């Protein structure tokens, strides 16, 4: 189809992580997320990388697939790393060179290099872990169900949690459909001699009109049809709606929750002992 969307794609292996309750995964990732931002030095990052690696191994998702999912983000990661190398000031000056005399001088400090490395590590572990827990090992439906439950208490202060979750489910559900549609329309217009890859910026933007207009029209048509279909089945929001599969926390889900908490505790402890931070 010409589109490779690996981030956000379910990959069935039937592992423990796949079967776990989405809420447990949400809590685990919440702890992991906080831990990556609390982490300050090489030791704690090594520990977090280890946790991420073990997660990937347990999920049985091949490393190749995980790396492929990270590929589109390579530019962002590289850019962040470069920013850190050139703009972080520190104590130990390594290289200094002049780009434009008397105007722009670039200093590279040892701290900048370390920072760049840690920043890259932070983004990569976080993305790898999130993609394993949330996209490869959790179906979008399970994820939004989990989110709905997770944010359930907010209903008390009149936040339309169910409606948000439903919107998210529908949006996720239609991503592949729309991608498919786009490639079909592109093919149809290519067959009529459309050329999307040559000419200047304006010519290329204009060449997109024959794709965008039919795509929007079909998206609106689908939205309307879906709304009608939902109304025909008496959908009227979350109140009084029951579920076919009730989420239930099992023993293994509490274990996952605990492991998440332990990861965070581990990072905090490393910070305390290795760097002498006070709690």
């Amino acid at each position, binding site marked *: *189809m010409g589109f490779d969307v690996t981030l956000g794609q379910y*990959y*069935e292996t039937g592992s423990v992580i796949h079967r776990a309750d989405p809420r447990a995964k949400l809590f685990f990732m919440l702890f992991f997320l906080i831990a990556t931002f609390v982490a300050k030095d090489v030791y704690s990052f090594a520990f977090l990388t280890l946790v991420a690696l073990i997660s990937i191994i347990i999920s049985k998702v091949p490393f190749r*697939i995980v790396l492929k999912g990270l590929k589109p983000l390579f530019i962002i990661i590289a850019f962040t790393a470069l920013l850190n190398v050139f703009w972080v000031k520190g104590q130990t000056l390594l290289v200094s060179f002049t780009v434009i005399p008397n105007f722009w001088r670039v200093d590279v400090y040892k701290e900048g290099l370390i920072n760049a490395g840690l920043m890259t590590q932070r983004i990569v572990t976080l993305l790898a872990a999130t993609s394993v827990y949330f996209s490869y090992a959790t179906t979008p439906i399970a994820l939004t169900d989990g989110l709905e439950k997770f944010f359930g208490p907010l209903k008390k202060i009149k936040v339309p949690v169910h409606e948000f979750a439903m919107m998210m489910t529908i949006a996720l559900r239609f991503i592949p459909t729309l991608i498919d*549609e786009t490639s*079909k*329309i592109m*093919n*149809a*217009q*290519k*067959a*009529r*001699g*459309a*050329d999307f890859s040559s000419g200047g910026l304006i010519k290329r933007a204009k060449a997109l*009109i*024959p*794709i965008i*207009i*039919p795509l929007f*029209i*079909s998206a609106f048509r689908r939205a309307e049809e879906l709304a009608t279909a939902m109304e025909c089945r008496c959908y009227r929001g979350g109140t009084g709606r029951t579920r076919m599969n009730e989420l239930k926390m099992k023993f293994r889900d509490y274990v996952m929750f605990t492991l998440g908490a332990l990861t965070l505790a581990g990072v905090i402890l490393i910070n305390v002992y290795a760097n002498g931070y006070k709690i």
Partner: protein
Amino acid sequence: MSCIELKDIRYSYGKKTPYEICALDGVSLTVKENCITGIIGHTGSGKSTLIQMFNGLMKPDSGKVIIDGEDIWEKPKEIGKIRYKVGMVMQYPEYQLFAETVKDDIAYGPRNMGISEEEIVNRVAQSANFCGIPEDVLSKSPFDLSGGQKRRVALAGVMAMDPDILVLDEPAAGLDPRGRREILGGIKRYQSESKKSIVIVSHSMEDMAMYCDRIAVMSKGKLIMDGNCAEVFSQRELLLSAGLDVPEISNIIYALRNKGISVPADIYTVDGAVDAIVNYVRGNKNGI
């Protein structure tokens, strides 16, 4: 006149993922010139993938696509020219309309080819005529038309490019019987006047029997039959085993033959069946 030759085409979707599906498994097929070739097959048999090979929308994993004696993938940069030579109308083409007026939409293809405006006016009028689009519709917005009319506009848009070979994926899908007859009849008329090669993909055996000169049958990514209508529709068992049907009238002929009435087995149109039965009845009378 042009013809397409496919040599041992293979293609898989989702390569190197757990969802890999082999869509084409060594298909060799020659599309003859100056006739209508039908491609039939069950859903998922690889028909749509196959025809996207014809104009280079898809590149085969292995095998060759030869048009007018030239391998189209030898010069990948000139694949655009192949698309002018092989016009393609995709499934449900009414969803590709975008222009402000029907006229502009039909003119989109020819304009991409760099044809002069006077010639475009000619071609728009001609192809609108073949597809049965009334003149007053030409200046309307394509989004104000009915589904069947939109389909015709999309078809006219490809015809206006005046390709040597016209490929249509399910041109009559989802239309009522009258709409089907009008669209397919228009295509047949276009073929007999222009003497071009046409390829039609369809599920409907009746339509195929009525409008095609040759038929290719796909099953599970393989080409299992290729011949004229009589040859293909007389092989009832093979068609049924591929999950396909034979035309209704062939079923009747089959039932008659089972009752010991000796009509020829290779009948696939209502007119042919009427003739055969009349002959049989007359023959019997003469015999008495």
